[in-house]
């Protein structure tokens, strides 16, 4: 089959395609090629990751010692807010869309995404969104300072004047995400190679399929809630203003109705990536494929009925607290299915530990730690203690950094040979992994203790008894930040050259993407492959 596909490709290239590559900047501005757009998404998200990371470095520098050293409290609030927004909407989400663009068509045997022009557009509006968001740092009002959750009335009555820029930036990000998600759904539904039934799709494809549906369902809610915020702030409506008959708690309900599915939007694709890599390096099939599909779908469904667990302390009737507590704990069941399936996949496999596998195994362990602290937070009575403390910060950084981000690293290492045609430097990759692993735990693990001891989040100063832990956390933070430059070096080196990668550099890897040459030709599967 491999040779067939390669030959097909060669013979078709001449006659089929008039869209020859343009040169220079025009190639990237006008491109409708899923691989080009995927690369742009990945680079964009990496740049955003560095910017968001730089903000985090300033935060950790300020928190290195108690007292105010480097920044004013108001600017500190701007840092935490924009750090969160950039990492969520600028780093993690576009990185996953980049993976989707690069890999989905190749995995399902399609020549490109279904809606290539829409694809170009959904990428190219993103830089504008973040230009507005980051640009607001340099405006008189300053950047948004009301937290990435932009609770009313912090973002309305008490806004520093950045609300309009924030709202328009979020609108553009939302439109981009919705267009990207529609593209993914249409591609998966209509572009699969003949014979690839839904239950034959790689799990990677499944997780992106479900994630895209989540995006389509909740990004419009986000658009709605920021619109209400905008009219409340500037046009005299009172959606969230008690003086005019509104209710600020309503804001939290609508926001978290978006916000909770959003956190699964950032983790389900990670499940897909890890479910691709662990079988490859265990040299076994993924254990319990169909249970993985159903578990993903169940998590997606449950994500819609647990939102108020973010709001236990707003004062809810007992019934509400119990309902949201039990529903939240229920999510541990399908998540547990996944973790056990990954373990069963590794069980008695002939495992090797290349960098992608190292990141994947770290993902399984550290994401599970994040999951467990999530379970603790789900318990209403104890949540009253943990709410808005560093325990929450520790929890969501374990699931987002050692979860989503580690899976992105794993995926990047895994497919770099396919993208660039060269093997990355394995030693440097391992150095990157071990530096990241040690520093990330030094960075986030002590936050659990800080939170349990009562250190509140989003503050530039803290009581003296938290000083020692914060010092270690900051050192971990700087080390983790610096470690990511190793990744940049690895990627640049890999693009420039190195050992030539064969079509299938990983012995145990499966999937159509390995049947095409490395680097993947500009056009692949112009004739659909045959699936047995």
């Amino acid at each position, binding site marked *: 089959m491999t040779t067939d596909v390669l030959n097909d490709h060669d013979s078709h290239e001449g006659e089929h395609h008039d869209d020859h590559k343009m040169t220079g900047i025009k190639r990237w501005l006008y491109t409708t090629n899923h691989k080009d757009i995927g690369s742009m998404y990945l680079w964009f998200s990496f740049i955003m990751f560095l910017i968001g990371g730089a903000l985090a470095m300033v935060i950790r520098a300020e928190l290195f010692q108690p007292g105010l050293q480097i920044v004013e409290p108001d600017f500190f609030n701007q840092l935490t807010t924009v750090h969160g927004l950039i990492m969520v909407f600028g780093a993690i989400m576009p990185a996953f869309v980049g993976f989707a663009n690069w890999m989905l068509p190749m995995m399902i045997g399609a020549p490109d995404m*279904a*809606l290539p022009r829409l694809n170009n557009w959904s990428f190219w509006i993103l830089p504008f969104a973040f230009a507005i968001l980051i640009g607001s740092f340099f405006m008189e009002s300053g950047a948004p300072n009301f937290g990435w959750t932009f609770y009313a009335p912090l973002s309305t*009555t008490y806004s520093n004047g950045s609300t309009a820029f924030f709202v328009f930036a979020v609108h553009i990000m939302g439109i981009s995400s*919705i267009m990207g998600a*529609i593209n993914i*759904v*249409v591609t998966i*539904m*209509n*572009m699969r190679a003949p014979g690839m039934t839904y239950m034959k799709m790689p799990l990677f494809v499944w997780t992106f399929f479900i994630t895209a549906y989540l995006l*389509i*369902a*909740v*990004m*419009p*809610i986000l*658009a*709605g*809630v920021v619109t*209400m915020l905008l009219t409340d702030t500037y046009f*005299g409506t009172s*959606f969230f203003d*008690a*003086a*005019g*008959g509104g*209710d600020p*708690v*309503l804001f939290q*309900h*609508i926001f978290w*109705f*978006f916000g909770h599915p959003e956190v699964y939007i950032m983790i389900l694709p990670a499940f897909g990536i890890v479910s691709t890599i662990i079988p490859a390096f265990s040299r076994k099939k993924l254990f319990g494929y169909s249970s993985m599909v159903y578990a993903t779908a169940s998590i997606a469904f449950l994500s819609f009925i647990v939102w108020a667990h973010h709001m236990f302390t707003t*004062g*809810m*009737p007992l019934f*509400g607290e119990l309902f949201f507590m039990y529903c939240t704990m229920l999510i541990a069941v399908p998540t547990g299915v996944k973790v056990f399936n990954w373990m069963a996949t590794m069980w008695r496999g002939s495992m090797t530990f290349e960098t992608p596998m190292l990141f994947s195994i770290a993902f399984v362990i550290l994401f599970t730690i994040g999951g467990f602290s999530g379970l603790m937070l789900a318990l209403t009575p104890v949540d009253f203690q943990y709410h808005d403390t560093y325990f929450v910060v520790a929890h969501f950084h374990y699931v987002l950094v050692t979860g989503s981000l580690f899976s992105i690293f794993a995926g990047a290492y895994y497919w770099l040979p396919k993208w660039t045609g060269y093997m990355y430097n394995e030693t440097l990759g391992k150095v990157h992994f071990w530096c990241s692993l040690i520093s990330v735990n030094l960075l986030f693990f002590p936050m659990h203790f800080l939170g349990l001891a009562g250190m509140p989040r989003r503050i530039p100063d803290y009581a003296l008894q938290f000083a020692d832990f914060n010092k270690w956390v900051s050192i971990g933070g700087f080390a983790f930040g610096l470690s990511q430059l190793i990744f940049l070096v690895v990627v640049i080196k890999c693009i420039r050259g190195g050992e030539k990668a064969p079509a299938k550099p990983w012995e145990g890897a499966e999937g159509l993407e390995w049947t095409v040459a490395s680097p993947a030709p500009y056009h692949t599967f112009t004739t659909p492959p045959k699936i047995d």
Partner: protein
Amino acid sequence: MKQDMEKETEQNVQQKNSKVIKKLMLIVFGMFGFGFALVPLYDVFCDITGLNGKTNDVAAVYSAGDIDTSRTITVQFITRTAKGIPWQFNPVINEVKVHPGEMKFVKFYAKNESDRDIVGQAVPSVSPGLAAAYFQKIECFCFTQQPLQANEEIEMGLQFYVDLELPEEITTLTLSYTLYDITGKVDS
């Protein structure tokens, strides 16, 4: 021939695509609308459950009838002024004892301590939230806006009763008023 067939399938795929896109766009617009629909839905939901402690905003009608003298409910009054309204605002008495079904009249004092005319709006809230549905206001200054000229003072009345159906376990209610400056928001 082969090209024709390819063209046909291409058209076919495009038709299939646009069908899916239309459906997905429906979801998008539907969910955008649903976000806004949550606003009235939330009000209805809170009305039924008393979730957010909001009380009736139109006057209740009191008909003299049974008074349950076996129960005595303590009703506490607290007030606060929102940021930026230079008024003094406090209850004349801090709490009253009331039997369910019995009507009570209490007064609140307000004074505009600034040199400009200000329109205030008091927003009531009852805690525990579940009791809000049983706290009936017959007459309340919060039903209307309160314009006060510079340095003017006023005593404002609140007439209420506690419903006979108030759940057994509730013995104390707290009625909280927050006063907002809405001068800029009212026309004329």
